[in-house]
């Protein structure tokens, strides 16, 4: 992780915790001391030499980094361009989520915290958190919507095997949004001993920036690997799916200020953007305050949060992180969307052309490759954020 503590870039967070008009820390007073402590200490802690050494050693030997940058020959022929896949699906636990949980648990230890909580939707972030808690011998409570507990049963078992307690969120729609509310409530009740490992670039400042920095290892490696393979460290396109947006933030991070690199964020359109069953936040959302941050999210005229829909639990979130809201607002990134059906077709396509079964989330990024306008000589990097093992039940049901 290259040190970058200056706040000069217009796409990075400023000293007040905002990305343009998005971000901030709209927290109840009960969380003020925790958030203030993080705001004051996070950069100093994570750029400390010993921290960096421990973080990178774990990423290398435990997570299995650097993940390969793979030239997808047959996929490239199909779309008549040069496609590289950044293989985050090969990370330990099966997705990029673990980059962040390794970073945050090291941070929690340095803050003297002795208990970890997390929220999870599909269970990938919950598994990645339970994993690092086992590694560091810290008790772990993961909040998960009651509905998600039913539909992601194998991940619940994985978390329990790893020693975590999975607590159902029974309020509201009983999905990711409500799991996040429950985790916030736990943190309010346990402010001194507990660290809340947020799984995406959402929540109050400094969480979005902190998670983006831990995930930025993705684009840092991309640059080195592209340089080796193509002679140029900059691609023409970087494509990533966006729920809250942690894998996209990591994949875009080191290209943000190079406007020659086109950034493409792919949202989940569910049954179709205007079907009433969608999670395409930038097309359906408005600015407001959700989960302690000013950002774009789907809401009623009166400011009540609207339930999203996506076949992919990891993209089934009504908002996006403030970093992405700003990339949308400034038009630095292009936002596209893929429907449930298109994502399933992309799963099949990648399986048959490259022998890789992607996660449903990542398949959304594959699904737009015919629409980005890449020329035959262009270099396109797709962040393949996770693998499809967790989605096999859905694939068996939907693709037969």
């Amino acid at each position: 992780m290259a040190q970058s503590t200056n706040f000069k870039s217009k796409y990075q967070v400023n000293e007040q915790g905002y990305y343009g008009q998005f971000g901030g820390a709209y927290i109840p007073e009960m969380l003020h001391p925790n958030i203030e402590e993080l705001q004051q200490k996070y950069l100093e802690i994570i750029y400390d030499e010993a921290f960096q050494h421990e973080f990178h050693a774990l990423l290398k030997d435990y997570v299995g980094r650097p993940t390969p940058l793979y030239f997808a020959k047959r996929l490239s022929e199909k779309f008549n361009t040069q496609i590289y896949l950044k293989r985050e699906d090969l990370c330990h636990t099966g997705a990029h989520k673990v980059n962040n949980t390794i970073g945050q648990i090291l941070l929690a230890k340095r803050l003297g915290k002795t208990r970890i909580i997390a929220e999870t939707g599909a269970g990938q972030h919950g598994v990645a958190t339970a994993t690092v808690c086992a590694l560091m011998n810290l008790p772990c409570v993961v909040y998960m919507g009651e509905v998600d507990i039913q539909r992601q049963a194998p991940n619940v078992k994985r978390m329990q095997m790893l020693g975590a307690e999975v607590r159902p969120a029974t309020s509201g729609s009983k999905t990711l949004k409500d799991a996040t509310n429950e985790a916030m409530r736990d943190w309010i009740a346990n402010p001194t001993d507990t660290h809340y490992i947020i799984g995406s670039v959402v929540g109050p400042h400094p969480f979005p920036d902190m998670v983006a920095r831990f995930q930025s290892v993705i684009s840092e490696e991309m640059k080195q690997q592209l340089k080796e393979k193509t002679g140029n460290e900059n691609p023409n396109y970087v494509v990533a799916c966006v729920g809250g947006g942690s894998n996209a933030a990591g994949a875009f991070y080191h290209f943000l200020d190079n406007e020659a690199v086109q950034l493409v964020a792919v949202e989940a359109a569910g049954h179709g953007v205007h079907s009433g069953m969608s999670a395409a936040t930038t097309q359906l959302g408005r600015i407001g305050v959700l989960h302690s941050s000013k950002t774009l999210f789907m809401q009623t005229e009166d400011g009540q949060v609207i339930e999203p829909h996506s076949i992919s639990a990891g993209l089934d979130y009504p908002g996006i992180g403030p970093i992405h809201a700003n990339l949308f607002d400034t038009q630095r990134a292009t936002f596209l969307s893929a429907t449930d059906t298109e994502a399933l077709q992309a799963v099949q396509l990648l399986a048959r052309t490259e022998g890789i079964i992607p996660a449903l989330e990542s398949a959304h990024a594959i699904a737009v490759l015919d629409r980005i306008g890449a020329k035959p000589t262009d270099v396109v990097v797709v962040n393949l954020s996770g693998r499809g093992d967790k989605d096999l039940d859905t694939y068996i049901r939907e693709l037969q």
Partner: protein
Amino acid sequence: MTNRIKELFQKKEKNILSVFCTAGFPELNSIVPILVELQNNGVDMVEIGMPFSDPTADGPVIQYSNTIAINNGMMLKTLFEQLKSIRSQINIPLVLMGYFNPVYQYGIDNFLKDAQACGIDGIIIPDLPMYEYETMYQSTFEAHQLQNIFLVTPQTSEARIRKIDALTDAFIYVVSSNAITGGTSNIQENQERYFQYIKSLNLKNPTLIGFGIKDKSTFETACKYANGAIIGTAFINAIDKSSNLTKDISQFIRNIKTV
């Protein structure tokens, strides 16, 4: 214009009872009759809850009342309609309390204008922090003569409490413990030490203790250390599915206040 909150604390220094009730609960049009009953039963102030789908500082009971209210069709514009002529019947101080997003969507300026027009005296927005308030909204609050009321918790530093004390001119909402609303335990010794500590700061603003105040005993303990206390969850429970609000409210208040 004199402020009813200031007048209240000038008139009465001890045992102030403030009740929180979610607007639109249990029925869409319940809030006006509830205000009347609360005033008739000698309640000193009411906090009217503006419902939100994701109330992260509240427990299950208040979230439930928010969900019912939203399902009943309660919106901010509906609430202001209902409260339009409330000052012809109600003269105790009224405070609006709710999360930031619905207020932000209504437009801060519109919200404060309509609140002032209804005769609202103060606003509590738990997730609008001091920094955002000072830099973006303080002047608008002042233009509409509405008091912004802040929370302090056992985790709030003395310097920050002092700053909050300087920034407001109504009362300070003392959160009784590190918890969400609706706690069920009795007041513990460490909480009393914390209340004593707040009392020893000799703040310029009066204080009301809230969160976990649920009956006569917790109310009286809180009143030993503060000017009064706020009851929310226990009141919501008392009127949930009530078939006779007059009777149930009167009984509830009688059980708390020493006559």
